[in-house]
């Protein structure tokens, strides 16, 4: 290969060969909002794009900081950039035909109903407990038909085996160990955050494919 961008057809054929044609069709028609592009969201977005998810709606007000490089999927040359822009660049190198839309804003109770109105699947990938609760409550209160995959508890050095996916409500899934707080643990390791992000991404892929038991 000479580094030139494959055609849409070439990439779709390669994905369908791995995933099956019908599954790939479902993935290519899917749209997922990723709220937060830190340790969780940057990994979720990449996993979904690699799988061939057709549309991603990226929401994050923040910029890439040196303290993010321990676990977030950004590079040195992206320091200072909006995470929305940096992740769009990264996704273009992986899945150039993924339809990426971005909203570099802070999600609030006021803008949530507008921002997420068109997204059938929402991934909660924030870091602060208040932001997590705001998004989860907002989606569950306002969008009864939206699928919601949130994360809770992935800080520290405990075994990755304690990270699980639970189905709290028919359309609300929660990944994580449920307890490991970064304020208490004092650390976040890429591998453990990625394990939680992988749970989220896999749950989303399964929902898209019609498999809704965790």
């Amino acid at each position, binding site marked *: 290969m000479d580094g030139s961008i494959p055609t849409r057809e070439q990439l779709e054929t390669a994905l369908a060969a791995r995933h099956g044609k019908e599954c790939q069709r479902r993935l290519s028609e899917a749209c997922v909002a990723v709220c*937060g592009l830190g340790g969780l969201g940057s990994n979720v977005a990449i996993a979904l794009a690699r799988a061939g998810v057709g549309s991603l709606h990226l929401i994050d007000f923040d910029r890439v900081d040196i303290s993010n490089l321990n676990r977030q999927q950004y590079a040195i040359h992206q320091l200072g950039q909006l995470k929305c822009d940096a992740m769009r660049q990264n996704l273009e190198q992986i899945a150039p035909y993924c339809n990426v839309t971005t909203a570099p804003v802070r999600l609030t109770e006021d803008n949530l109903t507008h921002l997420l109105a068109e997204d059938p699947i929402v991934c909660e990938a924030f870091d602060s*407990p208040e932001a997590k*609760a*705001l998004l989860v409550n907002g989606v569950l*209160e306002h969008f009864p038909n939206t699928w919601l995959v949130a994360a809770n*508890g992935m800080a520290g050095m405990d075994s990755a085996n304690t990270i699980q996916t639970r189905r709290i409500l028919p359309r609300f899934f929660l990944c994580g160990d449920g307890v490991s707080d970064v304020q208490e643990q004092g650390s*976040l390791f890429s591998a453990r955050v990625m394990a939680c992000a992988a749970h989220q991404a896999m749950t989303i892929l399964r929902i898209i494919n019609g498999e809704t038991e965790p």
Partner: protein
Amino acid sequence: MLTINGQTADDAMGKTLADYLTAHGFEPTRVAVERNGDIVPKAQYGQTILQDGDTVEIVRFVGGG
């Protein structure tokens, strides 16, 4: 029987959800509460009376992501 997070909590029967959260150290801005298969809207915590037969799950969010 009243069940909260998998545990019998009959002593909380008759209390409001808001009172229960306060008494057990939950910060209302960091939780989501499901009761009998439905989300309890935040604005209704003060009017939601915990009753015999209820199954409640309080998700307490922690930091990290």
